């Protein structure tokens, strides 16, 4: 009999504010330890928190993007516990009344098709510092640079039924927070990290006992950790034993989860509203200002690309993976002023392949949208064959002297023409010249002609190949084809 997997995710997205959520210290990553911690962050006696409106604004942006309710009044609470990297002895977080409530994220489930993962809530809180256990000869170092960094904790309902769905959700959420510019999404630096609540049950049965797997900072670890956890829980249950509610940590080295603390060890955090911070009030006018400044959201843009550029759904979905990708596409289409599908093909083909190979983001691509458009104009004008264009693209990507960065469209087109000329790549499209070429080929290969006449269609391709080879590939293949057919009366 089958087991049904039930998963809910809690994601901590670090908000991309310049300063911390309750102080003016910088949030930049990678500074020397404790150089970005001010009096408030290290919790000197007498200091007080002041809410960073930029963090609140980003939470509102998120709420609007997922169709959630923005609570007009939400409350910051203190979560009390002792730990050396928690300077105040409490974390300021939102507990009973979060800033964002409800909403959802649409995903494509590999097994169940399109579905909406419902969000329970998203709330603002501050990050703790870091405890550094290596390099201190049995002592622990404390780095408080991260203390007070703004986080949005995004909590789903238990709506996912497989690790693959959890990964699809995490990827969609990751793309969304980057799209709306509230989080840089850098998973190595911990800017986007997930905890997974995993349980299994017989289909139709009540929810099983869940375990929370902590600190999954890559999509691969998320998938592996859930798969391991599901196998572990199923094995326990099939063995007649039971799952104990606990918090577990994923060990990527071993590909296993291990127990951190059980429910019995759970601390009493003694939450209460923070008396240093009045309730967070968000009026309609603030929400309206944020809404007015919102970028077009990925779903809306995907539909628009399909409609306005007559793109297949797949292409539109791929081009809206990131805002930068979509912007590149629209810029290139505008500059190219040819068929949008041509641009899409290039982007999902050559451009994507080159990006993957170089492991860079599209914003850093050596061939920008204008350069790509210039190249496609040359193809469209017949100045260069598609095959030559691909070679040219590789050249533009890797050879600095051929890069067209920063040039206007006209300048790029002009420069490209010169390069094509220089390298002798210009395509032969002169009707008379190709007629002569075809006649020469026919005269030189009577046996192949005879084969064709005898009904061997493949012989035709051999004749095209001879013509192309004779011009080192520069002859316009479409013209060669047409003239050859005419001459052979086929």
């Amino acid at each position, binding site marked *: 009999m089958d087991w049904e997997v039930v998963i809910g995710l809690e994601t901590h997205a670090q908000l991309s504010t310049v300063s911390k959520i309750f102080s003016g210290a910088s949030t930049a990553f990678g500074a020397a330890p404790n150089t970005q911690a001010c009096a408030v962050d*290290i919790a000197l006696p*007498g200091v007080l928190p*002041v809410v960073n409106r930029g963090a609140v604004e980003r939470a509102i942006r998120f709420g609007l993007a997922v169709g959630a309710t923005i609570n007009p009044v939400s409350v910051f609470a203190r979560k009390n516990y002792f730990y050396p990297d928690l300077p105040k*002895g409490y974390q300021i977080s939102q507990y009973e009344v979060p800033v964002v409530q409800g909403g959802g994220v649409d995903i494509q489930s590999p097994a169940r098709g399109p579905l909406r993962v419902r969000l329970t809530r998203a709330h603002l809180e501050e990050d703790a510092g870091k405890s550094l256990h290596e390099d201190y000869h049995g002592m622990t170092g404390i780095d408080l640079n991260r203390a007070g960094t703004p986080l949005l904790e995004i909590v789903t309902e238990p709506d996912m039924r497989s690790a693959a769905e959890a990964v699809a959700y995490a990827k969609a959420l990751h793309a969304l927070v980057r799209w709306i510019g509230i989080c840089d999404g850098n998973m190595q630096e911990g800017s986007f990290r997930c905890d997974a609540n995993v349980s299994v049950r017989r289909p139709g049965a009540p929810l099983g006992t869940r375990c929370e797997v902590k600190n999954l900072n890559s999509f691969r670890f998320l998938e592996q950790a859930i798969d391991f956890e599901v196998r572990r829980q199923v094995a326990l249950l099939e063995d007649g034993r039971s799952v104990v509610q606990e918090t577990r940590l994923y060990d990527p080295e071993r590909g296993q989860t291990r127990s951190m603390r059980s429910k019995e060890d759970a601390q009493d955090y*003694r939450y*209460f509203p923070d*008396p240093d*911070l009045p309730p967070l009030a968000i009026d309609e006018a603030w929400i309206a200002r944020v809404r007015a400044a919102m970028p077009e959201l990925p779903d809306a843009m995907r539909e628009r690309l399909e409609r306005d550029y007559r793109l297949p759904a797949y292409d539109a979905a791929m081009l809206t993976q990131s805002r930068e990708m979509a912007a590149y596409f629209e810029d290139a289409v505008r500059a190219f002023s040819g068929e949008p599908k041509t641009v899409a093909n290039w982007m999902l083909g050559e451009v994507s392949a080159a990006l993957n190979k170089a492991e860079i983001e599209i914003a850093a691509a050596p061939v920008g949208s204008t350069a790509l458009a210039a190249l496609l104009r040359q193809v469209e004008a017949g100045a260069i064959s598609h095959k030559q264009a691909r070679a040219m693209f590789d050249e533009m990507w890797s050879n600095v002297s051929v890069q067209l960065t920063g040039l206007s469209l006209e300048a790029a087109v002009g420069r490209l023409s010169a390069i094509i000329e220089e390298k002798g790549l210009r395509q032969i499209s002169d009707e008379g010249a190709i007629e002569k070429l075809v006649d020469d080929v026919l005269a030189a290969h009577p046996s192949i002609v005879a084969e064709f006449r005898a009904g061997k269609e493949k012989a035709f391709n051999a004749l095209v190949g001879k013509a192309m080879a004779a011009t080192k590939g520069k002859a316009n293949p479409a013209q060669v084809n047409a003239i050859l057919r005419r001459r052979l009366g086929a």
Partner: protein
Amino acid sequence: MGGPLDTVAGLARQLAAREVSSVEVTRAALDRIAALDHALNAFVNVDGDGALAAAAAADAARARGGAGPLAGVPIAHKDVLMTAGLPTTCASRMLATFVAPYDAHVVARLKDAGTVLVGKTNMDEFAMGSSNENSHFGAVRNPWQPACVPGGSSGGSAAAVAARLVPAATGTDTGGSIRQPASYTGVTGLKPTYGRCSRYGLVAFASSLDTPGVFARTAEDCALLLGAMAGPDARDSTSVDRPVDDYAGSLAARPADPSRPLAGLRVGLPAEFFGDGVDGEVARAVDAAVGELRRLGAQTVDVALPRVGLSVPVYYVIAPAEASSNLSRFDGVRYGHRAAEYRDLADMYRRTRAEGFGAEVRRRILIGTYVLSHGYYDAYYLKAQKVRRLIADDFRAAFGRCDVIAGPTAPTAAFRLGDKADDPVQMYLNDIFTIGANLAGLPAMSIPCGFTGDGRPIGLQLHAPAFAEARLLTVAHRFQQATDWHARAPALPPA
């Protein structure tokens, strides 16, 4: 003469007229502290060199013509307020060697006004207490009767002003910690509206109640100091962005009928403040003071504060709850006391906090931790917050019928050291009349209004609606213009 025997207003006049220099006045204050404070223990730290340097700077500014209104006036700060470069101990072993790296907002404002800081005053540890017996640096003596407490928690500031060591000192009032010691030492103490003065740099005890304020000999002096301290501060989200009234100007305004300066004023007398729990001598002195207010033209009206009797239990849930969280930062990790030896992290926390905090602080952390615990939160903390709102409603309703509310500041005059030290509940009941203003966030004052037969001062408490400090100070000033209780000094050697 100049020096700490004069009031702030008197000193400011003499300094402005160049009759005395700040260096002379400051030296006189330092000399008097040196001569008398070993018996009082009002100061935990005196910064003689810093004070004289600041006084010289104030004199120089005066010579250039760029001096503030309080330039050169020596004052003291309660040791719960951060003072850059000076120890700020909260009278706790936990912070016994802690040097503040920044100035509290009110400290900076008073510095900007030109005041000269002579030292930091003793207090109950982390402002928890009503007798100033809970200090790591020892109890403070009442200048009127050394066997008696000066009240608390701002006992050092009250004693310093009463003994004329300084003309004024700051205090903080979380549950009567300015008004009760003002009453016990015969000085004038003002607790402003919550939010009127920034809490930035005030080491938190109970954040929703903590209020910086002042001690001085007169309401006029309190007005001068409040004018310098008050105002919004972007670093304190609970400070209120609202213009500061001209307090000194309000006091200086001439009444229409000088023989009846309080004509038109309605003084509310809540039955709850005049009941059986009040000592007879205190009740008689307060009644006489109310009679004086009537003689000055005020009309008295009966009002009710039916739930104010719940103030003490409500306070002793909310204040410890907030304290238990506020004091978590004293963990031995980054600053302050750390146990010399420990087995592991939990042991380090345990020993550090057991050694660093005194018994009363530990008691309140335990109470606070308990009332916030899972399963008890609703019954204690949430219920207390609801009753707190009802108490504030009582005051609001009463102020619909009157302009100020009068009563005794404390049920008794100063008690003897050790008398209540073993009975926390008796100690807590001392705050029964003062806590209401903290729970409701209202401004209130204690002004001297008489003495017991054996010479201990008695205080009259006045409450006003939120942000009506100008009214409160004006009523107190009119009373002091007509009486001389505030001008009496304890029998100490003259300066």
